[in-house]
Each structure stands twice: as C-alpha cells, then as structure tokens.
C-alpha cells in the first residue's frame, strides 16, 4: 500500500503540516485571551494636537532661504496650549516668525528671551492667542502656542537662512526631521517620559528633555502622527547633474536653465534626516564665489567661497601618522548605527600604511581601549584590531568625557601627525562642557568626527570638529560607509592649509567670522562671512606644506545677495559662544541678535493676538517627533527557538524512521 515514495513523502509532509498548524493554533489560542495590550504607564492619553510641518526652500547662489510652516490643529473639544520641540539645520539663522490664525496675520517681534517669555505668560493667562519661539540649542528650537480654541488651526511660519555645504565638488542640503534622544550625562537617566511634560512650567532649564514619540513608530503603517512636506526651488544659474536625495524619494523638475524644483514624494518621511546632494556640471565654475550686501548706512557685508587649487595639496611629503579611532558603543548606537560604525572601522583599518601606528578605543559609560599604547599597523596588530571590533557591543550610556580624557592630553608631537577619528551619534546633552574640554586639551592632535546613524547630533560633531581643527563627516547609511570614509582618508592623508587669515590689500585685518579660520583640507572650500568696510580687495593668506599661500579676491565684481549680514551675525554669535564663557558674551550676543533680528540663546520671537480674548486653555499638548529610523534602546531580544528546533528535529527524525521501517518491510517482503 505504501510502496511509492511520493505517497510516503506526501503523508509525512501532511503530518508535519498538521502538527505545526495544530501546535501554532493551540499555543496562540491558549495564551492570547488573558493578555491585553495597553500603555505601560497606565495613564490615559493626554490632549492631542495634530501637527503638519512644511518646509519650502529657495536656493540662490550659496544661500538657502527656508520657510518652515508648522500647522497646529486642535482636535479637542476644549482649548489647549501646544508645545513643539523641533530641530533645524546646525547653522540656521532664524530671522522671522509669523503667526496666522485664520485670516489674521501677526508678525512676530524679536525680543530679549526673558522679556518675551514674560509677555507670553501674561498673554496666555489673559486668554490671548500667542506664540513664542525660542532656541534651545544651536540646532533645536521650541515653539509654544497658547490658547488654541477647539477645532481651531494656528499656523506658525519660521524663516531661516543657511549656507549650503560644499565639499569635493558636491553641494548638500540637510534638513533634520527628528531628534536623536539624548543621553543625560549629568544624572545618567535614560529618558524623561514625555508624558510628564504636559505643563508649561516643567520646562527644563539648560538640560534638555528630548521629545520623541513611541506611538508614532507603532502607527507608522497607518497614520503618521505628524505630516511633513518639503519643496526646494534651486536657482544657482549652473547646470546641475546628479540631483540625488539620499534617503527619501523626490520628484525633480527642471523648469528652466539652471532652475530646478524638487518635491518630497513620500508621506512617511519624518523618521530620518533629509539630505539632497547635487553637483554642478562643470566643477571649475564652482571654485570661487563672492556675494555682497550693501546697506543704506554704508555697512557692507560679504560672503566668500573659495576652493584653493588642488595642486597645493598634492606632491607633499607624507609624515607618519598616529591614528586613534574612538568609537561610541553606547546603547543609542545599538542596531544599524553600530553596524555602520564597525564597517567604517574595518574599512579605515584597510587604509592604514605600514609606517602608521593606530589604536582603537571603545566607550560607553566606561572606556575600553584595545591597547594601552598605539600599535604599529602590522598584519598581526590589524588582525587583533579586527577581533576587537567584532567584540564591540552597544550597551550603556554615552560618557564622551571619559573617552576624550583618554585620547586628548594637550601634548605636542614631533615627527608625526596625530589624528583622532571619533565615531558617534553624539547623543549627549552637556555639549558646552565637552567643547571646553576639547579646546583646552587638544594640543597638537586633530579631531575628526564621523556622524553615524539616521539622525546624529551633527551640531555637536560639527562644532567638536571645528574646535578640534578637523572636519565632520556624516554617514547616513551602510552603503555610504565606503565613499565617505575614503573621502575622509583623502583629507587625512593630505596636509591642510593652516593659519588662514583674511585682510584687505593694505594688510589691515578684516572683521570676519569664524576667526581663526579652520584648517582647510583637500576638497573643502573656505566659506567665510566678512564685514567689508570699504575694502576693494580681500586677500586670503595661509600656510601650506610648500610655503605661504596668498589669493586675492576682488569685491567689485561680486554679485549682490540678500541676508548676508544675518549670516555674518550668525557666524559671529556662534564663534562668540563657542570660544567664550556664556555670561561674558551675553550682552554682545544679545545686542547682535536684536540688531540683526536673529534667534539666539538670549533672544526669542513673540507674537500676540491682542484683539480677541479666548477661553484660557488649561492643558498643554506636546507635539511629538518620530523615533529615528534604526533607533535603538531596544529592549533585549529574548526569543529562543530551541524548543521549536527540537520539535521539528523530532518530526523529521520520525519521518526518517518511517521511511526506514517501510523499506525494511519491503525488503523482507521481497525476500519472501
């Protein structure tokens, strides 16, 4: 009866199938009814606010002018106050705010932060509609909107300008859409729950309680909790090639020569930073640019971009290097970020020369060096390093301080170049203290930061690299590791142009920011905002490995552009805050910010609707950000399949013995 093997096979597979189905259905049936999914806080959900966010960028020359529109829609049957913590690009100079309620348009006024806060509180208590925008840190802002009536919509428009990135022949625009949750080094806490922040007066002072929604990651498939759209108008007067959005789908339209319209073509795009890169068709045309802005009172500001000729970098004798790789292995790096970091490290090792020496240091809340002393890049040591990298695991908090202490001690090095490559997502909150520390301990070393993950804290890393006289590289996905690390190593391998300075033709120093200009690496342009008095020419002087470098730029044949004064002021504020104690420069920064209508740590935009008195809202709704893509602080993965494997193994073995028995049965019959 059971003579055909096919028949046998069918029977065995049917048996296995039934067994699996029975097992699965029985198990799930037996367990599911007694458990329910609910919020682990057990708290009822707070008042909700629907937030829509749009960004419209207009790119002219090197300046990107952006209007961010935030629409707050109150879906509750009662009035609420709204609060939204949101990121903007690192160097953005926010210079205007407008509140729209229906037909009414209220222009925001810049004021001292304390004053603005006071006005806002008063308006809020009086039942007036008001909006307050403050800068929490250089790349993070807070909007507060008071008394949004039931079913009402309030629109807040913010305008900012930034200089776009230009490096190795490629322009890049970056727009952050979410915030990496920060590790609080001061208390070592994981995160403060956003649920606790529903009251205005619980705002953190100085230390940041970041906001990210857990809900949105679960609901991603259905309704994104915040909607986002982005449009870019590019008018650079150059023919562009390779317009390329790194992590999002975009539509590109070429409307006229040198003009492009780009629109985000994705509904759920808020969990990772937006990056758009493009290249001019002919690289030579992008080698120098000069824009000026003339004011009626005689003030003149200039923005210069200059790409030093490539031959200043090549053909130089190469000094041996000591490379120290510092890699963040904290819990926030878990997952994709850690994989990217490891891949970057492996690739970096493969680029070392045999006369280089190196060391690898992993850190979370403890520092784990691979070796006490730097090692020669021999085959043996490289293999040892590879094993060390394999064993790294992301766990624990980010105590960057300890890692910095381990690599920077302020010493000078003769005969070789010491380069520190720092790979991290930069989830730290005590940035200012860290910058001071780097500045005081840098010595002769150079600090290069590599940002890892889908939403790294690039503000921290960019500034750390500024102070560390190195450069910042952003790796957004695993496929980018190789080209980006290659670029970085090209920079590392070629000596920089140092001691850069600007003066007019008679040698008088100009008021330019940032001073001193950072060292310039291969493929990087100088980007500097200058206050030009009556200078006709600007002379850039620097020191290369072959000798002094001097380049003259004429201010006469520059094109005029808007907003350069604001960029100059923004750079000056940044530099003042970066290299000084906050208290000592507070007045100067405040003055600058008020004159140039800029948001700064000491100024805020306030808009108050005076005419209408509304119901006073009693609750504050927190608009939330999406969890960064690939973001960790995952709870441990603990599902084992050993029981299933044993069961399946047994079934297969049963099938095997059934076959055997069948065969011996047949054999014995055949013998008969």
């Amino acid at each position, binding site marked *: 009866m059971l003579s055909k093997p096919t028949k046998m096979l069918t029977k065995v597979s049917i048996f296995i199938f039934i067994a699996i189905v029975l097992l699965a259905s029985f198990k799930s049936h037996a367990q599911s009814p007694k458990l329910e999914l609910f919020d*682990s806080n057990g708290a009822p959900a707070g008042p909700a606010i629907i937030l829509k966010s749009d960004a419209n960028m207009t790119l002219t020359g090197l300046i990107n002018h952006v209007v961010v529109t935030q629409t707050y829609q109150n879906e509750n049957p009662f009035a609420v106050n709204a609060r939204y913590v949101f990121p903007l690009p690192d160097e953005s100079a926010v210079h205007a705010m407008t509140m729209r309620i229906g037909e009414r348009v209220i222009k925001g006024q810049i004021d001292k932060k304390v004053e603005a806060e006071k006005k806002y509180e008063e308006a809020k208590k009086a039942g007036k509609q008001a909006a307050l925008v403050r800068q929490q840190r250089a790349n993070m802002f807070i909007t507060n909107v008071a008394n949004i009536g039931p079913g009402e919509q309030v629109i807040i428009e913010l305008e900012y300008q930034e200089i776009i990135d230009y490096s190795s022949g490629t322009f890049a625009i970056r727009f952050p859409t979410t915030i990496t949750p920060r590790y609080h080094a001061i208390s070592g806490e994981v*995160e403060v729950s956003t649920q606790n922040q529903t009251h205005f007066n619980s705002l953190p002072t100085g230390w940041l309680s970041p906001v990210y929604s857990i809900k949105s990651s679960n609901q991603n498939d259905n309704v994104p909790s915040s909607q986002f759209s982005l449009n870019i108008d590019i008018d650079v007067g150059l023919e562009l090639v390779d317009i390329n959005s790194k992590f999002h789908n975009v539509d590109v339209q070429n409307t006229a020569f040198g003009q492009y319209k780009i629109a985000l073509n994705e509904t759920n795009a808020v969990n990772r930073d937006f990056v758009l890169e493009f290249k001019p068709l002919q690289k030579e045309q992008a080698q120098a640019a000069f824009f000026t802005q003339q004011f009626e009172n005689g003030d003149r500001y200039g923005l210069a971009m200059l790409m030093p000729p490539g031959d200043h970098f090549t053909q130089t004798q190469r000094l041996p290097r000591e490379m120290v790789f510092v890699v963040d292995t904290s819990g926030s790096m878990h997952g994709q970020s850690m994989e990217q970091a490891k891949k970057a490290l492996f690739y970096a090792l493969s680029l070392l020369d045999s006369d280089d020496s190196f060391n690898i240091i992993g850190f979370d809340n403890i520092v784990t060096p691979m070796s006490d002393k730097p090692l020669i890049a021999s085959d043996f040591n490289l293999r040892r390093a590879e094993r060390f990298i394999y064993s790294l695991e992301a766990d*624990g908090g980010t105590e960057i301080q300890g890692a910095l202490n381990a690599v920077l001690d302020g010493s000078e090095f003769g005969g070789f170049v010491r380069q520190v490559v720092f790979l991290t997502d930069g989830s730290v909150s005590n940035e200012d203290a860290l910058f001071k520390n780097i500045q005081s301990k840098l010595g002769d070393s150079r600090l290069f930061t590599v940002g890892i993950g889908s939403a790294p804290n690039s503000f921290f890393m960019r500034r750390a690299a500024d102070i560390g006289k190195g450069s910042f590289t952003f790796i957004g996905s695993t496929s980018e590791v190789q080209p980006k690390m290659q670029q970085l190593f090209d920079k590392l391998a070629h000596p920089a142009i140092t001691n850069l300075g600007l003066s007019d033709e008679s040698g008088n120093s100009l008021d330019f920011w940032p001073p001193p200009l950072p060292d310039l690496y291969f493929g990087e342009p100088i980007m500097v905002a200058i206050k030009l008095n009556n200078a006709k020419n600007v002379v850039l002087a620097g020191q290369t490995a072959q000798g002094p470098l001097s380049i003259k730029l004429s201010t006469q044949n520059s094109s005029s552009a808007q907003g350069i004064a604001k960029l100059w002021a923004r750079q000056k504020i940044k530099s003042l805050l970066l290299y000084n104690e906050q208290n000592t420069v507070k007045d100067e920064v405040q003055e600058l910010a008020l004159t140039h209508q800029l948001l700064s740590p000491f100024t805020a935009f306030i808009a108050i609707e005076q005419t209408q008195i509304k119901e006073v809202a009693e609750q504050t709704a927190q608009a939330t950000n999406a969890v960064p893509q690939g973001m960790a602080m995952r709870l*441990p993965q*603990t*599902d084992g399949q*050993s029981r299933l*494997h044993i069961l399946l*193994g047994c*079934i297969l073995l049963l099938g095997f013995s059934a076959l055997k028995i069948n065969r011996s049965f047949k054999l014995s019959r055949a013998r008969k």
Partner: protein
Amino acid sequence: MKKWLSAGLLIAGLGLFGHGAYMQAKAWLAQVLIEQAWQEALKSPGIKVKPWYYADSYVTAKLDWPSHNKTLSVLAGASGRNLAFAPSQFLPAGELGGKEFGNEKGSLIAGHNDTHFAFLQHAKVGEAFTLQLQSGVIQNYKVTGIEVIHQSQNSFLQTPGLYLLTCYPFDSLASGTDLRLLVSAQMSSPDSLSGISTTSS
C-alpha cells in the same frame, strides 16, 4: 531517490534537534557554573566574579521563584551571548536593589523565553519571589502587573521597581518578535515572607 530523501531527513532532523538541544543544554549547564560563581561572589561582595575565566560578564544577583521551582543566577549585560547562558540584567536601566538603595529607576532582568524565562508565561499577579544581591541581602518581591509591550516602549523604566522581561509570544514559529512580556514587581515588606512561602508551596 529514496536514499537521498531519507539521508536528507536524517541530516536535517539531527541538525535541528541537535541545535535545539544544544541551546537547552547550554542554558542549563551554564546555570550550574554560574551558580558556583555566585557562591564565590557572595563570599566577596564588591568583586566582580566571572562564571568562567574567559567570560566577559559577571554575576550580579540570584532570583528565587519558589512557586515555579526556579532558581536562576543573573549575569550583567543583556547581550545575546549572556542571555544564552543566564537571565541578564539590562545595564542601561537602573541598578538592582530598588529604592532602598537610593535607586529611582526601574531595574530590568531579561531572559530567553524558551529556557530560563519560559516559566514567566505561567506567572500570575500576586506571586512572590526573592532577589538576592551580591551583598547577601535577600529582597522580597511581589508581582504587581503582567503586560505585553512593544520593544520600543521603555518608559516603564522611569518607575522604580524590578521588571522581568522576555519575548512574546512564547513558542512562536517566527523569530525576531517586537513584542515583550513584561512582569512588573514591587518590593514587599520582609515580614510577609513567611506567609507567602507557606501559601505558595
């Protein structure tokens, strides 16, 4: 044809069975070694005792759950490697010991749902268990809640208490689930210990 089929069945069957049995055996054997290390650790609190010389973790506590007849030693660091050997303490969360030790955050112990923490599927609210710290202190806990959460929901760690965590559902056919079974426990007063131990046995 038949020969290939039977050989294939044999190899696959042995492979799967072997792998499953190996995981179970590893989980069980390691507990024996870790238990020895725990006895060592109790003698010298303050020293991090490794269960075997090349281990990259150390023993931190011992769980005793009489109603399920479970005694488990706990390792530090909830990495995949440690979890194969023992339930492990999730280090980014709070220290073990709870409020008495000035700890305002919840502490979390995770374990595999097919070995050490498989018994959690039968745990009930109100059950009592003890946690022994390396200082020798034995703390009494009572289960206050059992819930299923998504792996990204970690806000419960803001509330002090001891949390036991394992993947959910149990005996799932697919791996890599995003759901977790969370057993919350709060410290109960020490004098209730005698009462509980009699009722639970």
